[in-house]
């Protein structure tokens, strides 16, 4: 294949990765930014989203788009609810202590993963895409659905940005992130904000998973890669920075796509990890992060 189309394919693949990664990493970043909780179970919320998408879309007969759209709405809501319960039952009781919550979320990771294995089983199950139009380029064919993931993700990111910067809820979240004690003194129910943010973080991961599941199937171990990549993105972009997370996701996604198409996927992972090390050495707060107070 010639260089031009080769690069185009690499960029497309990279953008799909970026789109999903941006949503997942944003959830992780939000939870850390506001609550200072490193949520190791984030990847499992991603997996839950995919597994629920399978369950919902198989339960609904008729056109595949119907089942998929229902899953796109319902699966994140259910995952958000589960996250809310987990936050109430576990994180709040630990007073959001940074060390204790890491251990607690590792525990949650295993509990969710094993529950999925018990009730969903070890198989990888496909979810039918809402439409399967194949876009025919002169050099190769490409899935139309994959392109729609990029658009859907961009819309969701815009919506999140709007909520965070233009609404009262966002204002309250930002105030809590800036200084939770002062926020509390000003009458902001910090406790409820924490619960909401944790649920929102999980929902972003779940939405990303529902978007990706028609091209990669639901499997109980699928949460591991997104977790790792999300951490990489969040560290490079700067913990708690929305802009940094999106920029870093596009950077990592594109470089992953291009390097793995032209060279090898393993090299792409090596370079991403190197980048994390470099950022940690030279800009410990990430590209767009601010020093903690």
């Amino acid at each position, binding site marked *: *294949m010639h260089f031009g189309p*080769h690069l185009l*394919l*690499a960029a497309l*693949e990279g953008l799909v*990765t970026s789109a999903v990664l941006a949503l997942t990493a944003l959830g992780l970043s939000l939870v850390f930014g506001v609550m200072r909780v490193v949520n190791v179970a984030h990847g499992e919320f991603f997996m839950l989203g995919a597994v629920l998408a399978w369950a919902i879309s198989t339960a609904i007969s008729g056109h595949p788009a119907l089942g998929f759209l229902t899953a796109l709405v319902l699966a994140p809501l259910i995952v958000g609810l589960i996250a809310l319960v987990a936050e109430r039952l576990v994180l709040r009781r630990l007073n959001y202590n940074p060390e204790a919550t890491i251990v607690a979320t590792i525990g949650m990771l295993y509990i969710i993963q094993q529950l999925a*294995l018990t009730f969903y*089983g*070890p*198989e*990888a199950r*496909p979810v*039918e895409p809402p439409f*399967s139009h*194949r876009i*025919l380029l002169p050099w*190769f*064919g*490409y*899935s139309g659905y994959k392109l729609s993931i990029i658009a859907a993700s961009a819309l969701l990111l815009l919506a999140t940005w709007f909520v965070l910067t233009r609404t009262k809820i966002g204002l309250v979240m930002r105030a809590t992130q800036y200084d939770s004690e002062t926020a509390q003194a000003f009458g902001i129910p910090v406790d409820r904000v924490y619960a909401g943010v944790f649920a929102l973080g999980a929902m972003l991961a779940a939405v990303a998973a529902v978007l990706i599941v028609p*091209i*990669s*199937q639901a*499997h109980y*171990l*699928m949460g591991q*890669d997104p977790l790792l990549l999300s951490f990489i993105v969040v560290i490079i972009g700067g913990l708690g920075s929305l802009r940094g997370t999106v920029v870093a996701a596009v950077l990592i996604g594109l470089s992953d*796509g291009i390097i*793995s*198409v032209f060279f090898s*996927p*393993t090299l792409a992972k090596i370079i991403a990890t190197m980048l994390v090390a470099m950022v940690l050495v030279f800009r410990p707060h990430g590209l767009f992060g601010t020093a903690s107070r």
Partner: protein
Amino acid sequence: MTDKNGFFDLSKTGLTRRTALKGLAAGAGLAVAPGFVRYSQAQSSAPIKIGFQSHRTGIGAAYGRWYERTTAAAVKAINEAGGINGRPVEVIIEDDGTDPGRGAEVVGKFATQHKTDIVFGTLFSHVVIGSAPAAGEAKMPYFVVSEGHHVASTKLNRYVFQPGITDVKSQIQAMAPWIAANAGKKVTQIFPDFAFGYDHRDYLPPALKAQGAEVIAQIAIPPTESSFTKYFPQIPAETEVIYHVMVGPAVLTFVKELGEFYGSNRPQLFGFIDSLEATDINSPGLEFLDGSHFWEGSPRYAQPSDSAAQKAYRAAVGIDDNGAAVGDPKDVSTAAHMFGCWETLYVVKKAMEDAGYKGPEDRAKLVEATEALTEFAEGPEHPQGPKTFNGKIHQCFGIQNISKVEGGRLNVVHKTKIEDGLYEPEGDYTSQAL
């Protein structure tokens, strides 16, 4: 007998009459517990215990599920016919997570905890390679159903056998003439980046070269990969045949993305059914496979030429004419591989009977009796077809099926002969000490 410290004074050590009575009762309970009397009485009536190392979770889960069903069906048939040496067969299943490290632990558990007579049933080659040393160390006969060339390479040890399924080197050698003559001369290979894939990487190029064809590119993909489009640009444009073999949970994605990439304007495709094992070939997005060819160990779809034994085997395992579970058309089997469990158990039965096997102390005799086997006739015990067995390399040889996707099913269009897959032995296990 009472010293100053009261060491011999029973009242001070807390051993009261009540605890003594409890201890007696517990001891009596243990003696009448199920199994206790039977084992202590007579070895001959105790069941033969087969430790089944199953891929119940991890990337091999679909195979594990069907290997368990096939094994259960075979054991039921063997027990109904009187068991082995008059003793019933009992299968003990341990999940290895399709992980080599865990696999070795499972073999150890079978040897020391369950004290099974043999270990059986492993498919994934990296698990076999990881577990084989543990089996050799425990002197535990280890009967795998793996398809890899590792057993026949004689690089494992004397306790490892593969008598129920042919190995990749033999399969490739038998099919290469057909590929070169019917599919094309310029071949690009796509294979999983671990032991099983390396067998394909290493043995296809020489086998094709002997037929005047050549491998022009080799693309290795990690078995845990979930997205494949990025690998396809490496396929050279002059490729006439894509030879694909993939494993793992994402096989459906692999084939779908191949279809998206090429559409109907594709090179010839020759695949190992592994790329679609446990997956419905009529899944949406797989239409482009129509007219392509697959290797199958045993055909997934019922064929007009099926023998009575093949029909009986399919009914016993519970698969319908489309190779899916009876009553659940979505639960597609791993028909191309799982027959190996059935056949291997009958080989174990034959070898144990030849050896007059009584218990774990006869394991060495069992190894020698297995090595003495030479052929297995086609029939209810070997429904896939006739086989020969080479005791020096612990590997069987049999026929291969090449099937074409036509009208939403796989029809066998070519069957190789046993001789097509024979090669010079690379070593001799029988020269190793037992």
